[in-house]
Protein backbone atom coordinates (compact mmCIF):
# COMPACT_ATOMS: atom_id res chain seq x y z
CA UNK A 1 0.00 0.00 0.00
CA UNK A 2 2.73 2.45 0.90
CA UNK A 3 4.61 2.83 -2.36
CA UNK A 4 6.62 6.01 -2.15
CA UNK A 5 8.31 5.00 1.08
CA UNK A 6 9.86 1.83 -0.27
CA UNK A 7 10.40 3.10 -3.82
CA UNK A 8 12.47 0.44 -5.56
CA UNK A 9 11.17 -2.80 -4.09
CA UNK A 10 9.60 -5.36 -6.36
CA UNK A 11 6.31 -5.30 -4.55
CA UNK A 12 5.81 -1.60 -5.01
CA UNK A 13 6.70 -1.81 -8.69
CA UNK A 14 3.93 -4.36 -9.11
CA UNK A 15 1.48 -2.52 -6.86
CA UNK A 16 0.03 -0.03 -9.38
CA UNK A 17 -0.58 -2.83 -11.89
CA UNK A 18 -2.41 -4.90 -9.29
CA UNK A 19 -4.53 -1.88 -8.37
CA UNK A 20 -5.59 -1.08 -11.92
CA UNK A 21 -5.99 -4.75 -12.96
CA UNK A 22 -9.66 -5.46 -12.04
CA UNK A 23 -11.07 -2.24 -13.50
CA UNK A 24 -8.89 -2.33 -16.59
CA UNK A 25 -9.71 -5.98 -17.20
CA UNK A 26 -13.41 -5.08 -17.04
CA UNK A 27 -12.94 -2.25 -19.54
CA UNK A 28 -10.92 -4.46 -21.89
CA UNK A 29 -13.48 -7.28 -21.81
CA UNK A 30 -16.62 -5.15 -21.94
CA UNK A 31 -15.45 -2.09 -23.87
CA UNK A 32 -12.39 -2.86 -26.02
CA UNK A 33 -13.34 -6.39 -27.09
CA UNK A 34 -16.97 -5.42 -27.88
CA UNK A 35 -15.60 -2.69 -30.12
CA UNK A 36 -13.59 -5.33 -31.99
CA UNK A 37 -16.65 -7.59 -32.17
CA UNK A 38 -18.63 -4.65 -33.54
CA UNK A 39 -16.02 -4.19 -36.27
CA UNK A 40 -16.17 -7.89 -37.13
CA UNK A 41 -19.97 -7.88 -37.19
CA UNK A 42 -19.93 -4.91 -39.54
CA UNK A 43 -17.79 -6.87 -42.01
CA UNK A 44 -19.77 -10.13 -41.71
CA UNK A 45 -22.71 -9.44 -44.05
CA UNK A 46 -23.90 -12.10 -46.51
CA UNK A 47 -22.15 -10.28 -49.33
CA UNK A 48 -19.16 -9.78 -47.04
CA UNK A 49 -16.53 -7.07 -47.11
CA UNK A 50 -17.47 -3.45 -47.00
CA UNK A 51 -20.97 -3.73 -48.49
CA UNK A 52 -22.61 -2.93 -45.15
CA UNK A 53 -20.61 0.30 -44.99
CA UNK A 54 -21.61 1.12 -48.53
CA UNK A 55 -25.29 0.63 -47.63
CA UNK A 56 -24.86 2.58 -44.38
CA UNK A 57 -23.42 5.61 -46.12
CA UNK A 58 -25.68 5.61 -49.18
CA UNK A 59 -28.97 4.94 -47.36
CA UNK A 60 -28.35 6.79 -44.11
CA UNK A 61 -25.92 9.54 -45.02
CA UNK A 62 -28.80 11.98 -44.61
CA UNK A 63 -29.27 10.83 -41.00
CA UNK A 64 -25.57 11.29 -40.26
CA UNK A 65 -25.66 14.82 -41.68
CA UNK A 66 -28.85 15.66 -39.80
CA UNK A 67 -27.43 14.35 -36.50
CA UNK A 68 -24.28 16.36 -37.11
CA UNK A 69 -26.28 19.54 -37.82
CA UNK A 70 -28.55 19.09 -34.79
CA UNK A 71 -25.63 18.28 -32.47
CA UNK A 72 -23.66 21.26 -33.77
CA UNK A 73 -26.66 23.59 -33.35
CA UNK A 74 -27.31 22.27 -29.82
CA UNK A 75 -23.61 22.72 -28.94
CA UNK A 76 -23.52 26.33 -30.20
CA UNK A 77 -26.78 27.27 -28.44
CA UNK A 78 -25.58 25.56 -25.23
CA UNK A 79 -22.35 27.58 -25.50
CA UNK A 80 -24.25 30.83 -26.01
CA UNK A 81 -26.48 30.06 -23.02
CA UNK A 82 -23.94 28.31 -20.83
CA UNK A 83 -21.05 30.78 -21.02
CA UNK A 84 -22.94 33.77 -19.56
CA UNK A 85 -24.33 31.60 -16.75
CA UNK A 86 -20.91 30.07 -15.99
CA UNK A 87 -19.43 33.60 -15.99
CA UNK A 88 -22.19 34.86 -13.73
CA UNK A 89 -21.66 32.00 -11.25
CA UNK A 90 -17.86 32.31 -11.27
CA UNK A 91 -17.55 36.10 -10.97
CA UNK A 92 -20.78 37.65 -9.79
CA UNK A 93 -22.79 35.26 -7.65
CA UNK A 94 -21.07 35.89 -4.30
CA UNK A 95 -22.64 33.81 -1.54
CA UNK A 96 -25.15 32.29 -3.95
CA UNK A 97 -22.37 30.38 -5.79
CA UNK A 98 -22.99 26.94 -4.32
CA UNK A 99 -26.75 27.31 -4.60
CA UNK A 100 -26.50 28.23 -8.29
CA UNK A 101 -24.12 25.34 -9.00
CA UNK A 102 -26.66 23.10 -7.29
CA UNK A 103 -29.40 24.43 -9.59
CA UNK A 104 -27.23 23.70 -12.63
CA UNK A 105 -26.87 20.02 -11.70
CA UNK A 106 -30.47 19.71 -10.46
CA UNK A 107 -31.74 18.22 -13.77
CA UNK A 108 -29.36 15.29 -13.26
CA UNK A 109 -31.39 14.29 -10.21
CA UNK A 110 -34.48 13.48 -12.23
CA UNK A 111 -34.70 10.72 -14.79
CA UNK A 112 -33.51 11.76 -18.25
CA UNK A 113 -36.57 10.25 -19.91
CA UNK A 114 -39.08 11.84 -17.53
CA UNK A 115 -37.37 15.19 -18.17
CA UNK A 116 -37.82 14.77 -21.92
CA UNK A 117 -41.48 13.84 -21.41
CA UNK A 118 -41.82 17.04 -19.37
CA UNK A 119 -40.68 18.95 -22.47
CA UNK A 120 -43.33 17.09 -24.44
CA UNK A 121 -45.89 18.36 -21.93
CA UNK A 122 -44.61 21.92 -22.24
CA UNK A 123 -44.45 21.93 -26.05
CA UNK A 124 -47.66 19.97 -26.65
CA UNK A 125 -50.35 21.32 -28.97
CA UNK A 126 -52.62 23.31 -26.68
CA UNK A 127 -49.85 23.37 -24.07
CA UNK A 128 -48.44 26.48 -22.38
CA UNK A 129 -45.62 27.22 -24.88
CA UNK A 130 -47.85 27.08 -27.95
CA UNK A 131 -50.47 29.23 -26.16
CA UNK A 132 -47.84 31.82 -25.24
CA UNK A 133 -46.40 32.05 -28.76
CA UNK A 134 -49.92 32.30 -30.19
CA UNK A 135 -50.78 35.20 -27.88
CA UNK A 136 -47.58 36.96 -28.90
CA UNK A 137 -48.47 36.27 -32.56
CA UNK A 138 -45.12 34.49 -33.04
CA UNK A 139 -46.86 31.31 -34.11
CA UNK A 140 -49.65 31.16 -36.72
CA UNK A 141 -52.94 29.32 -36.38
CA UNK A 142 -52.35 25.59 -36.35
CA UNK A 143 -48.65 26.24 -35.77
CA UNK A 144 -46.94 23.55 -33.73
CA UNK A 145 -43.83 23.18 -31.61
CA UNK A 146 -43.92 19.43 -31.08
CA UNK A 147 -42.61 17.39 -34.02
CA UNK A 148 -40.40 20.24 -35.21
CA UNK A 149 -36.64 20.70 -35.53
CA UNK A 150 -36.87 23.46 -32.89
CA UNK A 151 -38.25 21.00 -30.34
CA UNK A 152 -35.56 18.39 -31.04
CA UNK A 153 -32.63 20.85 -30.96
CA UNK A 154 -34.15 22.51 -27.87
CA UNK A 155 -34.41 19.14 -26.13
CA UNK A 156 -30.82 18.22 -27.03
CA UNK A 157 -29.60 21.61 -25.80
CA UNK A 158 -31.46 21.17 -22.52
CA UNK A 159 -30.19 17.67 -21.83
CA UNK A 160 -26.52 18.45 -22.30
CA UNK A 161 -26.40 22.08 -21.12
CA UNK A 162 -24.96 21.22 -17.67
CA UNK A 163 -22.07 19.43 -19.42
CA UNK A 164 -21.29 22.74 -21.12
CA UNK A 165 -21.70 24.96 -18.05
CA UNK A 166 -19.62 22.98 -15.54
CA UNK A 167 -16.28 22.77 -17.46
CA UNK A 168 -16.52 26.47 -18.44
CA UNK A 169 -17.25 27.37 -14.82
CA UNK A 170 -14.22 25.36 -13.64
CA UNK A 171 -11.88 27.10 -16.09
CA UNK A 172 -13.27 30.57 -15.22
CA UNK A 173 -12.97 29.84 -11.52
CA UNK A 174 -9.25 29.07 -11.93
CA UNK A 175 -8.49 32.50 -13.45
CA UNK A 176 -6.38 34.72 -11.20
CA UNK A 177 -8.54 37.80 -10.54
CA UNK A 178 -5.42 39.98 -10.36
CA UNK A 179 -4.89 39.47 -14.10
CA UNK A 180 -8.22 41.15 -14.80
CA UNK A 181 -7.43 43.95 -12.32
CA UNK A 182 -4.03 44.44 -13.95
CA UNK A 183 -5.67 44.81 -17.37
CA UNK A 184 -8.07 47.39 -15.97
CA UNK A 185 -5.26 49.28 -14.21
CA UNK A 186 -3.60 49.54 -17.61
CA UNK A 187 -6.70 51.30 -18.94
CA UNK A 188 -8.17 48.37 -20.79
CA UNK A 189 -11.94 48.62 -21.25
CA UNK A 190 -13.95 45.84 -19.55
CA UNK A 191 -14.74 44.46 -22.99
CA UNK A 192 -11.05 44.35 -23.98
CA UNK A 193 -10.13 42.82 -20.62
CA UNK A 194 -12.70 40.13 -21.23
CA UNK A 195 -11.57 39.50 -24.81
CA UNK A 196 -7.84 39.48 -24.12
CA UNK A 197 -7.67 37.94 -20.64
CA UNK A 198 -10.77 36.06 -19.51
CA UNK A 199 -11.87 34.52 -22.81
CA UNK A 200 -8.49 32.98 -23.80
CA UNK A 201 -8.01 31.55 -20.31
CA UNK A 202 -11.45 29.96 -20.37
CA UNK A 203 -10.96 28.27 -23.75
CA UNK A 204 -10.00 24.84 -22.28
CA UNK A 205 -13.37 24.81 -20.53
CA UNK A 206 -15.11 25.81 -23.74
CA UNK A 207 -13.39 22.97 -25.64
CA UNK A 208 -14.18 20.36 -22.99
CA UNK A 209 -17.77 21.57 -22.64
CA UNK A 210 -18.28 21.53 -26.40
CA UNK A 211 -17.08 17.93 -26.69
CA UNK A 212 -19.13 16.78 -23.71
CA UNK A 213 -22.20 18.33 -25.34
CA UNK A 214 -21.55 17.43 -28.96
CA UNK A 215 -20.69 13.73 -28.52
CA UNK A 216 -23.77 12.61 -26.56
CA UNK A 217 -26.00 14.89 -28.66
CA UNK A 218 -24.70 13.32 -31.88
CA UNK A 219 -25.59 9.80 -30.70
CA UNK A 220 -28.84 10.66 -28.92
CA UNK A 221 -32.17 9.44 -30.23
CA UNK A 222 -34.59 10.05 -27.36
CA UNK A 223 -35.13 13.74 -28.08
CA UNK A 224 -35.70 13.10 -31.78
CA UNK A 225 -38.05 10.24 -30.99
CA UNK A 226 -40.14 11.94 -28.31
CA UNK A 227 -40.10 15.55 -29.48
CA UNK A 228 -39.71 15.17 -33.24
CA UNK A 229 -41.46 13.54 -36.18
CA UNK A 230 -39.90 11.00 -38.58
CA UNK A 231 -38.55 14.03 -40.46
CA UNK A 232 -36.25 14.73 -37.50
CA UNK A 233 -35.01 11.15 -37.09
CA UNK A 234 -31.36 10.98 -36.05
CA UNK A 235 -28.71 8.31 -36.65
CA UNK A 236 -29.18 6.88 -33.13
CA UNK A 237 -32.76 5.91 -33.96
CA UNK A 238 -31.59 4.12 -37.10
CA UNK A 239 -28.90 2.18 -35.21
CA UNK A 240 -31.32 1.23 -32.44
CA UNK A 241 -33.94 0.21 -34.95
CA UNK A 242 -31.56 -1.86 -37.08
CA UNK A 243 -30.10 -3.62 -34.01
CA UNK A 244 -33.27 -4.31 -32.03
CA UNK A 245 -36.14 -4.41 -34.55
CA UNK A 246 -34.84 -5.15 -38.07
CA UNK A 247 -31.87 -7.15 -36.74
CA UNK A 248 -29.70 -6.40 -39.73
CA UNK A 249 -26.60 -6.71 -37.55
CA UNK A 250 -23.91 -6.00 -40.18
CA UNK A 251 -25.67 -2.79 -41.24
CA UNK A 252 -26.37 -1.74 -37.63
CA UNK A 253 -22.76 -2.43 -36.63
CA UNK A 254 -21.35 -0.51 -39.58
CA UNK A 255 -23.58 2.47 -38.73
CA UNK A 256 -22.31 2.40 -35.12
CA UNK A 257 -18.76 2.09 -36.32
CA UNK A 258 -18.97 5.01 -38.71
CA UNK A 259 -20.47 7.14 -35.91
CA UNK A 260 -17.74 6.10 -33.49
CA UNK A 261 -14.92 6.47 -36.01
CA UNK A 262 -15.95 10.02 -36.87
CA UNK A 263 -16.18 11.03 -33.22
CA UNK A 264 -13.02 9.19 -32.09
CA UNK A 265 -10.88 10.88 -34.74
CA UNK A 266 -12.17 14.23 -33.54
CA UNK A 267 -11.53 13.40 -29.88
CA UNK A 268 -8.01 12.08 -30.48
CA UNK A 269 -7.12 15.18 -32.46
CA UNK A 270 -8.47 17.25 -29.60
CA UNK A 271 -6.68 15.15 -26.95
CA UNK A 272 -3.37 15.67 -28.77
CA UNK A 273 -3.85 19.41 -28.57
CA UNK A 274 -4.97 19.68 -24.95
CA UNK A 275 -3.96 16.41 -23.24
CA UNK A 276 -6.47 13.85 -22.00
CA UNK A 277 -6.48 15.14 -18.43
CA UNK A 278 -8.42 18.27 -19.35
CA UNK A 279 -11.22 16.15 -20.67
CA UNK A 280 -12.16 14.87 -17.26
Amino acid at each position, binding site marked *: *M*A*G*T*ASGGSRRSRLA*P*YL*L*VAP*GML*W*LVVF*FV*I*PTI*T*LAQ*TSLSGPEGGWTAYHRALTNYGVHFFRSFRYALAATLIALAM*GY*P*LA*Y*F*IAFRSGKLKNLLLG*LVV*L*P*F*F*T*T*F*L*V*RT*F*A*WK*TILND*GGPAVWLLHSLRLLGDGGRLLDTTIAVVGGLTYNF*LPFMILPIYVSLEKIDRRLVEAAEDLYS*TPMAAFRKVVLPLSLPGVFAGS*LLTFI*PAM*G*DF*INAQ*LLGSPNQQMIGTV*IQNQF*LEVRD*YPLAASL*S*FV*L*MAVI*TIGVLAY*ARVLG*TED*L*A
Partner: protein
Amino acid sequence: MRKLSRWLMDGVAVFVLAYLFLPIFVIVLYSFNKPAGKFNFVWKAFSLDAWKNPFAYEALYESMKLSLRVAALSTAVATVFGTLIALALTRYRFRGSGVVNLLLVLPLTTPEVVLGSSLLSLFLDINTRTGFGTIVIAHIMFSVSYVALTVRARIRGFDWTLEEAAMDLGATPFRVFFKVTLPIIAPGIVAAAMLAFALSLDDFIITLFNAGNRITYPLYVYGARRAAFPPQINVLATAILLVSLLALGATVLWQHRTLRQRGMAVTPLA
Protein backbone atom coordinates in the same frame (compact mmCIF):
# COMPACT_ATOMS: atom_id res chain seq x y z
CA MET B 1 -22.05 50.45 -22.39
CA ARG B 2 -20.49 48.70 -19.47
CA LYS B 3 -23.78 48.68 -17.57
CA LEU B 4 -25.66 47.44 -20.61
CA SER B 5 -23.41 44.46 -21.27
CA ARG B 6 -23.49 43.48 -17.60
CA TRP B 7 -27.24 43.78 -17.53
CA LEU B 8 -27.49 41.67 -20.67
CA MET B 9 -25.24 38.96 -19.23
CA ASP B 10 -27.18 38.81 -15.97
CA GLY B 11 -30.41 38.63 -17.95
CA VAL B 12 -29.15 35.65 -19.95
CA ALA B 13 -27.97 33.96 -16.74
CA VAL B 14 -31.39 34.28 -15.11
CA PHE B 15 -33.11 33.09 -18.27
CA VAL B 16 -30.86 30.01 -18.51
CA LEU B 17 -31.49 29.13 -14.86
CA ALA B 18 -35.24 29.34 -15.52
CA TYR B 19 -34.81 27.14 -18.61
CA LEU B 20 -32.93 24.54 -16.53
CA PHE B 21 -35.57 24.63 -13.85
CA LEU B 22 -38.74 24.61 -15.98
CA PRO B 23 -39.06 20.86 -16.78
CA ILE B 24 -38.26 19.96 -13.16
CA PHE B 25 -41.13 22.21 -12.09
CA VAL B 26 -43.42 20.52 -14.63
CA ILE B 27 -42.44 17.03 -13.40
CA VAL B 28 -43.27 17.91 -9.79
CA LEU B 29 -46.45 19.80 -10.73
CA TYR B 30 -47.83 16.99 -12.86
CA SER B 31 -47.34 14.47 -10.06
CA PHE B 32 -50.37 16.28 -8.54
CA ASN B 33 -52.45 16.06 -11.72
CA LYS B 34 -55.60 14.05 -12.23
CA PRO B 35 -55.33 13.39 -15.97
CA ALA B 36 -58.45 12.99 -18.09
CA GLY B 37 -57.28 9.85 -19.88
CA LYS B 38 -54.41 7.41 -19.58
CA PHE B 39 -51.76 10.00 -20.50
CA ASN B 40 -50.58 12.57 -17.97
CA PHE B 41 -49.59 15.22 -20.53
CA VAL B 42 -52.40 17.79 -20.15
CA TRP B 43 -53.32 19.54 -16.90
CA LYS B 44 -56.82 18.70 -15.65
CA ALA B 45 -57.23 19.05 -11.89
CA PHE B 46 -55.20 19.04 -8.69
CA SER B 47 -55.17 15.69 -6.91
CA LEU B 48 -53.17 13.76 -4.33
CA ASP B 49 -54.29 10.40 -5.73
CA ALA B 50 -50.95 9.42 -7.26
CA TRP B 51 -49.05 10.36 -4.08
CA LYS B 52 -51.45 8.35 -1.91
CA ASN B 53 -51.05 5.35 -4.15
CA PRO B 54 -47.58 5.52 -5.70
CA PHE B 55 -47.33 1.78 -6.36
CA ALA B 56 -50.74 1.37 -7.99
CA TYR B 57 -49.06 0.04 -11.12
CA GLU B 58 -47.42 -3.29 -10.40
CA ALA B 59 -45.11 -3.16 -13.42
CA LEU B 60 -43.91 0.34 -12.54
CA TYR B 61 -43.16 -0.79 -8.99
CA GLU B 62 -41.29 -3.87 -10.24
CA SER B 63 -39.26 -1.74 -12.68
CA MET B 64 -38.22 0.59 -9.85
CA LYS B 65 -37.14 -2.37 -7.70
CA LEU B 66 -35.09 -3.76 -10.59
CA SER B 67 -33.43 -0.38 -11.20
CA LEU B 68 -32.50 -0.05 -7.52
CA ARG B 69 -31.04 -3.57 -7.45
CA VAL B 70 -29.01 -2.95 -10.61
CA ALA B 71 -27.79 0.41 -9.28
CA ALA B 72 -26.77 -1.01 -5.89
CA LEU B 73 -24.85 -3.92 -7.39
CA SER B 74 -23.13 -2.03 -10.20
CA THR B 75 -22.23 0.88 -7.89
CA ALA B 76 -20.64 -1.44 -5.33
CA VAL B 77 -18.41 -3.13 -7.92
CA ALA B 78 -17.60 0.01 -9.93
CA THR B 79 -16.71 1.96 -6.79
CA VAL B 80 -14.12 -0.64 -5.74
CA PHE B 81 -12.63 -0.95 -9.26
CA GLY B 82 -12.60 2.80 -9.88
CA THR B 83 -11.12 3.69 -6.49
CA LEU B 84 -8.27 1.21 -6.94
CA ILE B 85 -7.46 2.75 -10.33
CA ALA B 86 -7.58 6.27 -8.86
CA LEU B 87 -5.19 5.21 -6.06
CA ALA B 88 -2.75 3.72 -8.57
CA LEU B 89 -2.84 6.86 -10.73
CA THR B 90 -2.32 9.30 -7.85
CA ARG B 91 0.13 7.27 -5.73
CA TYR B 92 2.45 5.76 -8.32
CA ARG B 93 4.25 6.75 -11.48
CA PHE B 94 4.28 3.71 -13.71
CA ARG B 95 4.73 2.70 -17.32
CA GLY B 96 1.38 2.36 -19.02
CA SER B 97 -0.42 4.97 -16.93
CA GLY B 98 -1.08 6.85 -20.16
CA VAL B 99 -2.89 3.81 -21.55
CA VAL B 100 -4.92 3.57 -18.33
CA ASN B 101 -5.89 7.24 -18.65
CA LEU B 102 -6.89 6.80 -22.27
CA LEU B 103 -8.96 3.69 -21.51
CA LEU B 104 -10.76 5.62 -18.75
CA VAL B 105 -11.62 8.57 -20.98
CA LEU B 106 -12.65 6.66 -24.13
CA PRO B 107 -15.94 5.26 -22.76
CA LEU B 108 -16.92 8.82 -21.77
CA THR B 109 -16.24 10.11 -25.26
CA THR B 110 -18.06 7.28 -27.03
CA PRO B 111 -21.77 7.83 -27.71
CA GLU B 112 -23.98 5.63 -25.57
CA VAL B 113 -25.62 4.11 -28.60
CA VAL B 114 -22.22 2.78 -29.68
CA LEU B 115 -21.36 1.48 -26.19
CA GLY B 116 -24.73 -0.27 -26.00
CA SER B 117 -24.64 -1.74 -29.48
CA SER B 118 -21.06 -3.00 -29.28
CA LEU B 119 -21.77 -4.74 -25.96
CA LEU B 120 -24.84 -6.34 -27.51
CA SER B 121 -22.80 -7.52 -30.49
CA LEU B 122 -20.39 -9.19 -28.05
CA PHE B 123 -23.25 -10.91 -26.20
CA LEU B 124 -24.76 -12.04 -29.51
CA ASP B 125 -21.38 -13.29 -30.66
CA ILE B 126 -20.87 -15.52 -27.61
CA ASN B 127 -24.57 -16.49 -27.44
CA THR B 128 -25.23 -14.90 -24.07
CA ARG B 129 -28.86 -14.22 -23.21
CA THR B 130 -29.32 -10.60 -22.25
CA GLY B 131 -31.03 -9.87 -18.93
CA PHE B 132 -30.23 -8.87 -15.35
CA GLY B 133 -26.58 -9.95 -15.55
CA THR B 134 -25.83 -8.12 -18.79
CA ILE B 135 -27.50 -4.92 -17.50
CA VAL B 136 -25.23 -5.00 -14.44
CA ILE B 137 -22.15 -5.72 -16.58
CA ALA B 138 -22.95 -2.73 -18.81
CA HIS B 139 -23.57 -0.40 -15.87
CA ILE B 140 -20.29 -1.37 -14.18
CA MET B 141 -18.51 -0.74 -17.49
CA PHE B 142 -19.65 2.87 -17.86
CA SER B 143 -19.45 3.66 -14.11
CA VAL B 144 -15.80 2.63 -13.58
CA SER B 145 -14.51 5.65 -15.54
CA TYR B 146 -16.70 8.12 -13.69
CA VAL B 147 -15.67 6.71 -10.30
CA ALA B 148 -11.94 6.62 -11.12
CA LEU B 149 -11.90 10.18 -12.47
CA THR B 150 -14.01 11.58 -9.60
CA VAL B 151 -11.94 9.93 -6.87
CA ARG B 152 -8.70 10.96 -8.57
CA ALA B 153 -9.83 14.58 -8.78
CA ARG B 154 -10.72 14.56 -5.08
CA ILE B 155 -7.56 12.95 -3.71
CA ARG B 156 -5.04 14.65 -5.96
CA GLY B 157 -2.75 16.94 -3.99
CA PHE B 158 -3.38 15.26 -0.67
CA ASP B 159 -0.52 15.02 1.81
CA TRP B 160 0.49 11.36 1.55
CA THR B 161 3.37 11.78 4.04
CA LEU B 162 0.76 11.02 6.71
CA GLU B 163 1.01 7.38 5.60
CA GLU B 164 4.76 7.43 6.08
CA ALA B 165 4.30 8.99 9.48
CA ALA B 166 1.98 6.16 10.50
CA MET B 167 4.48 3.58 9.20
CA ASP B 168 7.33 5.25 11.07
CA LEU B 169 5.23 4.96 14.20
CA GLY B 170 5.08 1.20 13.63
CA ALA B 171 1.69 0.70 11.96
CA THR B 172 1.34 -2.30 9.65
CA PRO B 173 0.48 -1.55 5.99
CA PHE B 174 -2.96 -3.06 6.59
CA ARG B 175 -3.56 -0.77 9.56
CA VAL B 176 -2.20 2.23 7.66
CA PHE B 177 -4.71 1.65 4.88
CA PHE B 178 -7.73 1.37 7.14
CA LYS B 179 -6.73 4.00 9.73
CA VAL B 180 -5.08 6.64 7.51
CA THR B 181 -5.61 6.15 3.76
CA LEU B 182 -9.27 5.17 3.77
CA PRO B 183 -10.49 8.03 6.01
CA ILE B 184 -8.58 10.48 3.79
CA ILE B 185 -10.14 9.29 0.55
CA ALA B 186 -13.59 8.40 1.96
CA PRO B 187 -15.39 11.66 0.99
CA GLY B 188 -14.20 11.30 -2.61
CA ILE B 189 -15.33 7.68 -2.71
CA VAL B 190 -18.78 8.55 -1.35
CA ALA B 191 -19.20 11.33 -3.94
CA ALA B 192 -18.14 8.96 -6.73
CA ALA B 193 -20.46 6.20 -5.51
CA MET B 194 -23.40 8.61 -5.45
CA LEU B 195 -22.59 9.67 -9.01
CA ALA B 196 -22.38 6.04 -10.16
CA PHE B 197 -25.68 5.21 -8.45
CA ALA B 198 -27.44 8.17 -10.08
CA LEU B 199 -26.01 7.33 -13.51
CA SER B 200 -27.11 3.71 -13.23
CA LEU B 201 -30.62 4.63 -12.07
CA ASP B 202 -30.95 7.04 -14.99
CA ASP B 203 -29.38 5.06 -17.80
CA PHE B 204 -31.62 4.35 -20.74
CA ILE B 205 -29.76 3.91 -24.02
CA ILE B 206 -27.11 1.34 -23.02
CA THR B 207 -29.70 -0.54 -20.96
CA LEU B 208 -32.16 -0.67 -23.88
CA PHE B 209 -29.63 -2.67 -25.89
CA ASN B 210 -28.69 -5.11 -23.13
CA ALA B 211 -31.82 -5.62 -21.04
CA GLY B 212 -33.36 -8.56 -22.92
CA ASN B 213 -36.90 -8.75 -21.58
CA ARG B 214 -36.15 -7.09 -18.23
CA ILE B 215 -37.67 -3.64 -17.69
CA THR B 216 -35.87 -1.00 -15.62
CA TYR B 217 -37.55 2.23 -14.52
CA PRO B 218 -36.33 4.29 -17.53
CA LEU B 219 -37.36 1.45 -19.87
CA TYR B 220 -40.82 1.43 -18.26
CA VAL B 221 -41.13 5.18 -18.80
CA TYR B 222 -40.11 4.72 -22.43
CA GLY B 223 -42.72 2.02 -23.00
CA ALA B 224 -45.33 4.12 -21.17
CA ARG B 225 -45.57 6.53 -24.10
CA ARG B 226 -47.55 3.88 -25.99
CA ALA B 227 -49.92 2.30 -23.42
CA ALA B 228 -50.45 4.69 -20.50
CA PHE B 229 -48.41 7.41 -18.79
CA PRO B 230 -49.77 7.60 -15.21
CA PRO B 231 -48.86 10.43 -12.78
CA GLN B 232 -47.18 7.76 -10.61
CA ILE B 233 -44.20 8.08 -12.98
CA ASN B 234 -43.92 11.73 -11.93
CA VAL B 235 -44.34 10.77 -8.26
CA LEU B 236 -41.38 8.38 -8.45
CA ALA B 237 -39.29 10.93 -10.40
CA THR B 238 -40.05 13.54 -7.72
CA ALA B 239 -39.17 11.02 -5.00
CA ILE B 240 -35.81 10.32 -6.68
CA LEU B 241 -35.20 14.08 -6.82
CA LEU B 242 -35.98 14.54 -3.12
CA VAL B 243 -33.88 11.58 -1.98
CA SER B 244 -30.91 12.77 -4.09
CA LEU B 245 -31.17 16.27 -2.69
CA LEU B 246 -31.26 14.93 0.88
CA ALA B 247 -28.30 12.64 0.20
CA LEU B 248 -26.37 15.49 -1.38
CA GLY B 249 -27.13 17.82 1.53
CA ALA B 250 -26.10 15.17 4.06
CA THR B 251 -22.76 14.45 2.35
CA VAL B 252 -21.95 18.16 2.05
CA LEU B 253 -22.53 18.59 5.80
CA TRP B 254 -20.55 15.44 6.58
CA GLN B 255 -17.61 16.55 4.42
CA HIS B 256 -17.54 19.97 6.06
CA ARG B 257 -17.44 18.29 9.46
CA THR B 258 -14.74 15.77 8.62
CA LEU B 259 -12.64 18.49 7.00
CA ARG B 260 -12.88 20.58 10.15
CA GLN B 261 -12.02 17.62 12.37
CA ARG B 262 -9.12 16.68 10.17
CA GLY B 263 -7.91 20.24 10.14
CA MET B 264 -7.66 20.08 13.90
CA ALA B 265 -6.05 16.66 13.93
CA VAL B 266 -3.54 17.33 11.17
CA THR B 267 -2.23 20.74 12.17
CA PRO B 268 -0.21 19.57 15.22
CA LEU B 269 1.62 17.09 12.96
CA ALA B 270 2.60 19.79 10.49
